């Protein structure tokens, strides 16, 4: 189940960044992917909200910074706002 969630997150991120799914590593995050810039980040949040059919929580909006974070949000989790 966790792997399926990570794969969905990978597909979503790949679509936003216009990259191949296979090129996105498990530890991908801001700063590690050249295409993940400010506009891509906006597209990512909007794609996530479209996928989930609801606005993200304020905490998740500000905390998303990695592939793992995206998978957590897709699974309905709440990320830690501080400490990144």
């Amino acid at each position, binding site marked *: 189940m966790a792997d399926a969630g990570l794969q969905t997150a990978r597909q979503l991120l790949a679509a936003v960044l216009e990259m191949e799914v296979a090129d996105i590593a498990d530890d991908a995050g*801001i*700063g590690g992917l050249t295409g993940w*810039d*400010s*506009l*891509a*980040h*906006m597209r990512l*949040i*909007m794609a996530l909200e479209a996928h989930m059919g609801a606005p993200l929580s*304020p*905490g998740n*909006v*500000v*905390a998303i*910074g990695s592939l793992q974070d995206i998978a957590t949000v897709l699974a309905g989790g709440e990320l830690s*706002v*501080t*400490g*990144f």
Partner: protein
Amino acid sequence: MDWRPGEPLQLETDRFRLRSLTPADATITYVSWWNDPEVQAGLNFPARGWDRQRAIRHISQFNNQTGFHLGIFCKDTDRMIGFFAAFPDPQSKVAKTNIVIGEKDYWGKNVVQEVRARMLSFLFEVMGMEKVKGEIQGRNYPSIFNYKAMGFTCEGVLRSDIPRFDGGRTDVFIFGLLRDEWEALKAPAHD
């Protein structure tokens, strides 16, 4: 650095020149940013309906001491593409900052991080600030990204804190960077 409080400020990065704006910089382009719904939405404002005189009044309120309003100019063309505002408080030693990239062909071109990095050096090293912070009003995702990417900490989310310019309410995100955090972040560049 050859600059005294109250004097116009000029700074440079690899691609850009930052300098204190004067009334002569209230060009049609500058005024248009204040009247552009897409640009203003990032500040949680509707188009302002400003004319040149209103823009001149805005520019004239900055004293280059506790308030800076710096135009961002491309070094190769001298084209103004946005501005950076900073408000260093000498008592608390905390500076608030804000940045607007008005020319949309420069969105997503890493202007914010390049310019803010230079301003951080000025605010910490020259102005003696202990902290620099920014408040994001509304869900300005590119701005959130830039603060995160530069090592700022999200110190809090004020949920549903202010009215949205187009109805409803919106959150306010507070980002901050302390002097020692900034020194740690810049350290690798000097190895």
